[in-house]
């Protein structure tokens, strides 16, 4: 009887060790919150540029370089590309996007859609 109890203790001890390793080193599929966080921050940034009356002018003149430069300065850890009015782009698979609508500026009415694509470098 004593032998059986000792054997059970050894088995349980091994189970504890295995469970501990499993708990510590198992790669679990935890949702990555970084993309949504970055989308919120980029959306806020675009809204600020729009309030400063810069974004509408850049979009209307198709000045993507200016938009990319501002985004790059504000978010150095991200890579960006932008499309105006649903223009097609070559993008990496891990890119995600934010859209921003612009009716025009105070001298020119022209509905436009800016899509900002971003991915971690």
């Amino acid at each position, binding site marked *: 009887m004593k032998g059986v109890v000792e054997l059970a203790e050894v088995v349980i001890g091994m189970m504890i060790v295995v469970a501990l390793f499993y708990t510590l080193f198992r790669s679990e599929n935890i949702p990555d919150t970084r993309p949504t966080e970055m989308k919120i921050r980029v959306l806020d940034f675009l809204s600020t540029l729009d309030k400063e009356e810069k974004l509408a002018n850049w979009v209307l003149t198709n000045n993507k370089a200016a938009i990319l430069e501002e985004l790059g300065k504000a978010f150095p850890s991200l890579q960006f590309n932008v499309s105006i009015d649903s223009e097609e782009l070559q993008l990496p698979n891990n890119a995600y996007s934010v859209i921003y609508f612009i009716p025009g500026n105070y001298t020119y009415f022209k*509905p436009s859609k800016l899509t900002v694509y971003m991915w971690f470098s």
Partner: protein
Amino acid sequence: MKGQYMFLMCVIFLFVLITLRFGISTAAYASTEQNLRAIYLKKMNEGVFHAIEKSLLISANNRSYIENNFEDFVRYVKNSYDFGVLAIEVNIPKVYPNENTTFNVTIFNSLGKNISNVSLNFSYDGSNYFFESVSDNTSIKVNFTFNISSDAVFTLNITYYSPEENKETILLPARIEKANFIYNLKVVFRNGEVEKAYGEFGS
């Protein structure tokens, strides 16, 4: 007896470990992600609403196109983003004392469904219009007339069913030697969020 206590302790220990790993952390992350998505959606809605309102303001210098520009912009955004809008726009031309002023009221329905039994009542003389139905993505236009010798504020009462009853009372300030554009917007977003705005700009 000692072995049984040991066994019981082990079972409890394992249970706590598994609960910690599978229960708390994953749920916490999932909840954070869900909250972040809700924040993102709210900010997107705010951005779209701001752009819709701005489409009216940027047309202020070209008053004969305000309503058309607004409708064009709403249709443009709806190609990429799901929402509904009901807009009431009042375009009052320059008012001269003791002369008849006829102004235009536009109701643009883009709520994604028809609205019915639409009635408009103007407080100046009680004149009114009635429409049995206004289809989705269409607008109706009516004219009202007033004659004043000094600045005045009128009201326009609008009732419609969608299918529940809705009532809007819009203040219409009329100022001598000035034109005025008044708008009342109701935007309904996919997540049930509703944004409203009343504004005016003159010249």
